[in-house]
């Protein structure tokens, strides 16, 4: 037996095996490519393609694509649409990433503590989550935005506050099942502490669920930003995001100014689909259960 043992290749961590699994999912790879491309477009693009995105220029308003050196035309306030798409993308991606990650961290901590401790602590913590889920996020968002007019930071915080509930539920379910695993029981049974069990065994083993969910959370957060803008509660101009651009373009439906609708709309669909594809690939890779 020792002969076969020694001839085996160097030990591979579960992570490297999983990476191969991820890259065999073509949609997931496509998702990574789209996200990277759109990030380059939004963050590096403005360095190469410089446009005025703060003050308006009504003389240059409503130009068609290609006119006067504007590849995608201009909008009603004279902003170059291509340049604006880059600026807006920066907001959508940054706010979406930050809010999604923040929500996931909050939810993971809440859920793993509730699930591992169980009993009354769990019951109380989870009823709070139930109450949060009972109030549809977008309604709460509108009420909060009616109270405080959001800056980008505020937006991140508000979205995280309405989005941490689903990851909390998922991690709690995971923690519940993990805590009856023999290796976690053994910690308790041989006099180990709760913090060792949670930090060394529960949280590392929920990582799959957490990472998969974080990806979906980012996708949902980017959608939420768009909805907030559509409902007129988004960032104040001249700041903008893809949702706000699309909303501004709605009136163009009847004037035929397609460049005010499609670029922003397609950008949102692309980035959100991409994150969903990645999430789906990660789910295969970690072999964890669905979104809800």
């Amino acid at each position, binding site marked *: 037996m020792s002969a076969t043992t020694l001839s085996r290749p160097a030990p591979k961590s579960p992570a490297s095996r999983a990476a191969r699994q991820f890259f065999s999912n073509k949609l997931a790879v496509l998702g990574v490519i789209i996200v990277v491309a759109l990030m380059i477009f939004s963050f590096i693009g403005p360095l190469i393609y410089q446009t005025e995105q703060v003050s308006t220029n009504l003389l240059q308003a409503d130009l068609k694509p290609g006119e006067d050196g504007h590849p995608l035309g201009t909008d009603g306030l004279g902003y170059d649409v291509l340049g604006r798409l880059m600026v807006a993308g920066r907001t959508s991606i940054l706010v979406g990433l930050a809010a999604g990650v923040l929500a996931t961290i909050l939810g993971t901590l809440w859920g793993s503590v509730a699930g591992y401790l169980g009993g009354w602590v769990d019951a109380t913590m989870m009823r709070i989550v139930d109450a949060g889920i*009972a109030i*549809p*996020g977008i309604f709460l968002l*509108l009420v909060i935005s*009616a109270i405080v007019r959001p800056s980008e930071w505020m937006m991140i915080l508000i979205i995280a506050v309405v989005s941490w509930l689903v990851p909390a539920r998922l991690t709690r379910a995971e923690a519940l099942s993990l805590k009856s695993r023999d290796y976690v029981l053994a910690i308790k049974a041989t006099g180990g502490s709760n913090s060792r069990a949670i930090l060394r065994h529960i949280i590392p083993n929920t990582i799959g669920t957490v990472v998969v969910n974080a990806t979906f959370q980012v996708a949902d957060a980017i959608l939420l930003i768009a909805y907030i803008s559509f409902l*007129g509660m988004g960032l104040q101009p001249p700041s903008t995001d893809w949702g706000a651009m699309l*909303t501004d373009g709605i009136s163009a439906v009847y004037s035929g100014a397609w460049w005010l609708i499609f670029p922003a*709309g397609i950008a949102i669909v692309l980035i959100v689909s991409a994150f*969903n*594809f990645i999430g789906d690939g990660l789910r295969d890779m970690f072999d964890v259960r669905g979104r809800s």
Partner: protein
Amino acid sequence: MSTTTTAIRDSSGIRLFSWFLAKRLVQAAVVIAIVSVIVFLLLQALPGGPARGILGQQATEAQIAAFNHEQGFDLPLIQQYFNYVGQWLQGDLGRSFVMNTDVSSLIAQRLPKTLVLALAAVGGALLVAIPLGMAQALRRNKPFDYVMTGLNFIVYSTPSFFLGLLLIMFFSQFLGWLPASAPQGDTVAEILSQPKEMILPVLTSGLAGVATFSRYMRSSTIDNLHEDYVRTARAKGTPMNKVVSRHVLRNSLTPVVTMLGYYLPVMFGGALVVEQLFNYPGMGLLFWNAAQTSDFPVLLGCVLVISVATVIGSLLADVTQFILDPRARGGVK
């Protein structure tokens, strides 16, 4: 339903069911209590407190002080909270200061219209999604499944107002088949008398439902196809198509039916956007208008009603699951 009665008929079943129901009712009551605290706290968080919210930004300090005293807003917070709860329990959600009407009667007028839209959308979505999800599961990892999964993700990733916009451009502007505006009217009957106007709003909210439900149905069917009972049925000589229709379909539907209860908040959220886009006179539009005018009594009244509806929805979902899925009952032991 005969299924239900026989399953629960034996005495231990009844005992188990009543224990489960009692526990779940207590949970729901606790959740509603927490929601009421959140709504109360939001009221406190309004700039200048509830008085500013209710009297408007133009009110003077003196007016506010008088109002606060009159309304009992100078009382301790706990006492104020219980005063609110007392009002809420009597169905009094306050008065809109923009429309000068009872919030509860405004909601009573608008909610049914939102429900009509939502029911049509969910019903239609289920009719498409259930066969679609099953078909994908049966052709798992074949081109059909890949294409439909990709499409599902794309629809799911499209903001519904963009989707609605595309539908308007295509069906209303390009083809000229359908009107781009929603039916108008005070009553549900009036709304229903304009079916052509209903099509685009229902289609817009329904498509997102198709994407969600079919993914759910797909994974639920895949899970069931891997169950041992499928092999047992095959070993009896039951052809695969009959195994699917006799055994797999029912067991796969249970989680989807259950999920409908949890879908309520998504449905209300979707209504908010779709009603705004098509100018459909439902509760979403009421809420949106209230947000534009900072009509806080309406905003909070809507939140309260929707939350209570959601809690009841998930309660019904759990009860349905308990009744439909014998495994859930077996697991309680």
